């Protein structure tokens, strides 16, 4: 298989960490409960009039978008591809609670209008005046990887020359407590973030390369081996693995990974949310850019499905 032509030009995050800070400055977050985002001053990204009406997930996503575009020197991307687990959950919840508590009369449409998950991608498009390809993947804990796979395929085939890839999820008290009771957070701190990546098929000024994205719900070992084989790699060539495991909570799910490798985790920095692997990807980018890793594999797991993202550093040894 020929070398991938999918590069990461820049990355940006607003999360439980300091807004826009580098991954090397990340600190572990609390051990339990809700850990909300640390918010930047949005005035330099969004006009105050617009800002006032905008839910937190939208303002964060627009701010990280503007930041990655600026870093990459791109005004308007060819495409905006979003991954989200719960979409615009605060506005959804607000319309829903009013309806179930007060009945089906006197409902104001404003929260409904911005409740659909694609509001994130379309508000980014409206802000940028971007008429390009626009898609949203809403697939629980693998929404970000699915969005990345679509980006990867469209760039690989030359359909697009660059893609703004955005991951966004939002924490609300009601949904936090419901999903906590359903056991989704597994007693870990729950958080939220918007994370953006500027992807390009041109390596100029790139910080890392995405070699492949493979997602498998029925035979992850075979798929992983096939991916390594296609890239002429053995486990020896991969110096760092980063997983969605958290303090060994899911160690059974990751037991197939080889012993004796450097295996890192990201959820102590991101907290739990459905697109938290975007923070894992942000950390991978930082390590690859600063030459702290050469070949990295990010492994995410959700409901019997695994994703494997293979990255390369562009630093020459």
């Amino acid at each position: 298989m020929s070398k991938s032509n999918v590069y990461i030009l820049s990355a940006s995050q607003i999360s439980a960490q300091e807004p826009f800070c580098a991954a090397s400055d990340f600190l572990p977050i609390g051990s339990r409960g809700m850990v909300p985002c640390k918010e930047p001053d949005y005035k330099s990204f969004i006009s105050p009039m617009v800002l006032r009406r905008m839910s937190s997930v939208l303002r964060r996503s627009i701010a990280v978008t503007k930041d990655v575009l600026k870093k990459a020197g791109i005004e308007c991307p060819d495409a905006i591809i979003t991954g989200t687990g719960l979409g615009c959950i605060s506005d959804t919840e607000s319309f829903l609670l009013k309806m179930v508590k007060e009945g089906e009369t006197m409902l104001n449409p404003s929260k409904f209008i911005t409740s659909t998950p694609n509001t994130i991608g379309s508000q980014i498009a409206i802000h940028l005046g971007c008429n390009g390809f626009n898609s949203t993947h809403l697939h629980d804990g693998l929404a970000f990887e699915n969005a990345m796979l679509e980006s990867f395929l469209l760039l690989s085939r030359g359909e697009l020359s660059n893609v703004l890839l955005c991951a966004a999820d939002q924490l609300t008290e009601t949904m936090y407590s419901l999903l906590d009771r359903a056991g989704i957070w597994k007693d870990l701190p729950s958080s939220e973030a918007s994370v953006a990546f500027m992807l390009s098929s041109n390596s100029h000024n790139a910080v890392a390369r995405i070699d492949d994205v493979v997602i498998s719900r029925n035979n992850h070992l075979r798929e992983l081996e096939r991916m390594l084989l296609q890239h002429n790699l053995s486990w020896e060539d991969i110096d760092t693995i980063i997983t969605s495991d958290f303090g060994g909570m899911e160690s059974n799910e990751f037991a197939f990974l080889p012993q004796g490798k450097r295996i890192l985790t990201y959820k102590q920095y991101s907290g739990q949310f459905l697109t938290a692997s975007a923070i894992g990807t942000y950390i991978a980018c930082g390590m690859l850019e600063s030459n702290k890793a050469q070949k990295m594999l990010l492994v995410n797991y959700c409901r019997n499905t695994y994703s494997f993202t293979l990255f390369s550093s562009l630093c020459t040894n």
Partner: protein
Amino acid sequence: MYGQIAITGAGIISALGVGLGQTYDGLLSDNCPIGVPKHLATIHTNLPCGEVDFSNSQLYRLGAVDTSMVLPRSSLLGIVAARQAEESAGFDSSCRIAFINGTTVGGMDITEGYLLKYLETDEYNNLIPLHLAGYSTDAIADSLSSSVAFSDTISTACSAAANAIAFGAELILSGRFDVVIAGGVECITKFHFNGFNSLMILDNQPCRPFDANRRGLNLGEGAAYLVLESREHAQSRKAPIKAYLSGWGNSCDAYHQTASSPDGRGALMAMQKALAKAVLRASDIDYINAHGTGTQNNDLSEGVALMELFGEKMPYVGSTKCFTGHATSAAGALEAVISLLCIENSFIPANLRFEQKEPALSFSPVSKTLTGVELRHIMSNSFGFGGNDTSLIISSPQL
């Protein structure tokens, strides 16, 4: 790219009935299935919609679903249509299979039904994760007899199913999968029924797309899936090719969260991209299965974009939402399957209840069923909230 992405199977459930046969019969019949809600527990009993006329327990039986599993209505509808699609294509279970589902409501019907109970008691905690759209998608994927290697949920509002089909085509082109089952599902929920009602875009009579006196849309529900594979793969297993997906185009209107731009810029660009992908000229399109919701804004904006693209040589235009209602995230898949039926049976369904031409548009839709029309290429449009506009081109296998 005519001749590359073969459509070898299809399944559908909507207000028109279950399966391709009932859908075809319904489209030729004068009995419009749009009526007041029977299954949705809403106070808006006067607002017409295109419900699938089965209760959830009937859907459990129809889909042969284990009744000990609690599933959202969207999964139940999806299971019925996806299994039909799988069976009709008859591929081998050793194929590498992906399932791509366009949906927005996911398990919203369960959440809105139980939310107050969730807030009071732990008794129903096991139902909470059903809210997540991925659960409803994977419940459908798990119901298939073949093992699904990759599943995804696309949620771009009313163009979700069309984008799922387009992504399915990309997955086939990538060579990663032999077969992709792609389409979408939506059940009517109180959440979006009330959302659309609060926007004051629901017609209190059956909808009248493109009519000068149109007053809004009727919501609909259903599920539909296409089976996509490369022509080589279909031919190697001697599968009959029903049609080709020859073009797809996605563009964002980037104008307003709910309104379409007056010049239909996103719609026009999506259609142009689909034509470019198909390597076709506008004059090659024989019929446009329009988004045609029946709202003032959509039909005008879409119509202006059609005039810009097709000029004086307007192909036949019609909206089949006057039969199915607007099945939101499933609409693109319902209409792709309807387009397939039109090609197979050489007919164009009537754009029902059309009386008066919209003065701002140069064309009128097909007001009476046309039969015996040879259809080479059909363009199917799906436009969503947030300006997520997608156009598909479905082509006859015999050209």
